[in-house]
């Protein structure tokens, strides 16, 4: 028990007395609404007291940082030794445009890189594909071949800066380009560090960037895990992501549950398919969460996630290495919480969300720019967003002490409640036969659709408020300058591709694509063949077309 019996009795008596006062007070001062709940519509009580954590055991459930179950953080010393990584997600236009933005961000004190690719690159199409119409360079950088990639990383010390790449179905190809680029620059694979998102399950569930069906998609992921374990030990080969699940409209509990269940699926597959032992690769698994606007719900979600993953790794998979028990995660503030109306208010939203991520103990953070709901972020907007993190780190004092909200009746009770609700989901998905089986039934997709619709209805009925959208609406906004991507990027990319295909050794390209096809058919690890192919200047789409041919294409079932 968390409190001595005497304290508990005294507290229970006091709480009873307070409850009587509440009833009296409500007669003359009624509440503003009948029900109070989080942005995910989880009901919140008026007051939390020692009774709410009566069954919480300090040493087993809370503990200290750096000790199982890691509720209070993985690091023994917290942020005192090192802040979280300031990692702004960026990419737009051509590789050269993005490289310039990266150098600017590094000059301004950013400590890690994070790549946004355009939709054709994300989906495994070259810039000259008819499918790329209107999309080249729009939502990120266009990368077609190793040539583009070398421009992208020009002047970046690959042995010093870690780079995250948000890439999923073509992750093997883009990672192969990174590995090839490192070799060309003379940096050994053992020295490079970074992350590929490479989490396909959440694509089927939420983000909808898919190429092949779930089963072969998971196979390709296991290939990267195996290759990383053997040759690129500083690389995080999967970033198991709740971010997009949340952006698609899930609740915080759904984000927590579906993300951890996706993680379980990957671990099971690598063990089964590759015969690796869990401790060989689990320390390199990383996570990615959303930080939404409901402050305490987010902090509790992140704390619960650490404790749950530690339990999963230790109890479910029998991992022995404490590093396997760690849930290390990147956080991005919630794009879906931002408003096009009165866009400068977005700075305040992002600040609140960033603060929650820090109090939740994130290892890495992207703060959204105020204009991201309108267009790609301008340089000025990105600078404000980066400075937001730096102010939280250097001025507010919140990083002085570890997990400062621990022991709050409310925070511990909500952490416990969210964990319990997430376990229920995980058990349900286990019963369905795992996440691939569950998503083939449409289960997580429909749960999220339901939650998203529920929230929109609450906005329409003003049960939930978004300032500037359904309350405090103003006629005249202060407009923000919009960034427009030069339409020339597409034409330039197409020209570059033509020139590339003329000058490269096309026989070598065909041979290396055939090698990938054979590897796919035999179930061999594709990574070494991908690296060879990108070095021969095979394009991204040429490699992805091999995957499509061998594994088939997945089509959106259009559930709603």
């Amino acid at each position: 028990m968390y409190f001595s019996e005497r304290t508990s009795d005294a507290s229970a008596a006091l709480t009873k007395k307070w409850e009587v006062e509440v009833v009296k007070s409500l007669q003359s001062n009624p509440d503003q609404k009948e029900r109070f709940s989080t942005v995910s519509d989880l009901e919140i009580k008026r007051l939390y007291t020692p009774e709410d954590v009566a069954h919480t055991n300090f040493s087993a459930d809370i503990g200290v940082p750096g000790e199982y179950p890691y509720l209070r953080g993985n690091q023994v010393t917290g942020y005192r030794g090192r802040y979280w990584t300031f990692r702004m997600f960026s990419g737009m236009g051509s590789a050269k445009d993005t490289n310039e933005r990266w150098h600017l961000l590094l000059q301004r004190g950013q400590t890690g890189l994070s790549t946004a690719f355009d939709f054709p690159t994300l989906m495994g199409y070259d810039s000259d594909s008819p499918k790329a119409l209107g999309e080249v360079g729009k939502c990120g950088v266009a990368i077609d071949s190793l040539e583009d990639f070398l421009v992208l990383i020009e002047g970046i010390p690959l042995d010093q800066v870690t780079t995250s790449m948000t890439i999923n179905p073509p992750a093997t190809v883009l990672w192969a380009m990174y590995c090839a680029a490192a070799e060309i620059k003379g940096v050994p694979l053992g020295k490079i560090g970074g992350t590929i998102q490479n989490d396909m399950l959440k694509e089927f569930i939420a983000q909808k960037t898919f190429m092949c069906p779930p089963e072969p998609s998971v196979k390709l992921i296991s290939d990267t895990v195996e290759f990383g374990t053997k040759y690129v030990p500083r690389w995080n080969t999967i970033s198991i992501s709740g971010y997009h699940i949340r952006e698609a409209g899930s609740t915080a509990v759904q984000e927590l549950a579906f993300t951890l269940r996706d993680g379980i699926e990957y671990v099971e597959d690598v063990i089964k398919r590759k015969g690796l032992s869990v401790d060989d690769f689990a320390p390199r698994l990383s996570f990615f969460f959303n930080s939404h606007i409901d402050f305490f719900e987010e902090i509790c979600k992140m704390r619960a996630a650490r404790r749950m993953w530690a339990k999963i790794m230790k109890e479910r998979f029998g991992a022995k290495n404490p590093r396997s028990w760690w849930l290390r995660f990147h956080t991005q503030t919630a794009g879906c919480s931002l408003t096009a109306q009165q866009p400068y208010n977005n700075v305040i939203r992002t600040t609140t969300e960033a603060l929650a991520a820090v109090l939740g103990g994130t290892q890495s953070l992207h703060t959204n720019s105020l204009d991201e709901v309108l267009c790609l972020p301008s340089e000025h907007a990105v600078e404000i967003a980066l400075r937001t993190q730096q102010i939280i780190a250097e001025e507010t004092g919140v990083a002085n002490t570890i997990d400062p909200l621990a022991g709050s009746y409310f925070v511990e009770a909500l952490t416990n409640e969210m964990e319990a609700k997430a376990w229920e989901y995980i058990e349900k998905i286990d019963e369905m036969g795992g996440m691939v089986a569950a998503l083939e039934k449409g289960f997580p997709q429909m749960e999220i659709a339901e939650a998203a619709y529920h929230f929109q209805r609450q906005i329409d009925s003003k049960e939930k408020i978004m300032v500037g959208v359904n309350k405090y609406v103003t006629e005249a906004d202060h407009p923000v300058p919009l960034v427009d991507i030069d339409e020339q990027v597409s034409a330039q990319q197409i020209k570059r591709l033509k020139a590339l295909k003329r000058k490269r050794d096309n026989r070598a390209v065909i041979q290396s694509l055939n090698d990938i096809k054979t590897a796919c058919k035999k179930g061999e690890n594709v990574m070494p063949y991908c690296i060879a192919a990108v070095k021969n200047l095979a394009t991204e789409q040429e490699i992805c077309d091999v995957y499509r041919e061998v594994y088939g294409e997945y089509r959106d079932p259009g559930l709603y």
Partner: protein
Amino acid sequence: MTQRKIRVMVAKPGLDGHDRGARVLARCFRDAGFEVIYTGCHQTPEQIVAAAIQEDVDLVGLSCLSGAHKALFPRVVELLKEKNAGDIAVMGGGIIPEQDFEALYAAGIKAIFTPGAPLESIVGWINENIKPRA
């Protein structure tokens, strides 16, 4: 004689996977009493137009959040006209800067809704402006 229900196709052109808005609207239209067809993500303008004609819809609602609306929305209108289905109305939504509205209206997009538009306002617009085609 009861009038037949308005048939609406919610469509996601291009490679954009941001389908939260499209899926919420599909549900909302169903609840509003329309017949709804949702295409799912990653449809080419050609696929959307073929489906709209085959399903005999009265309205196509296009959703795009990737910035490709300038190329994709007018293309859908153009293809509908080519296939003699120019009487199928097209509306659009997503992240669409106001500066693009004029060109989209000129290209034949009948209405544009951006984030924050209440569901009721969209349903209201449809009820006022779209009649089931004979």
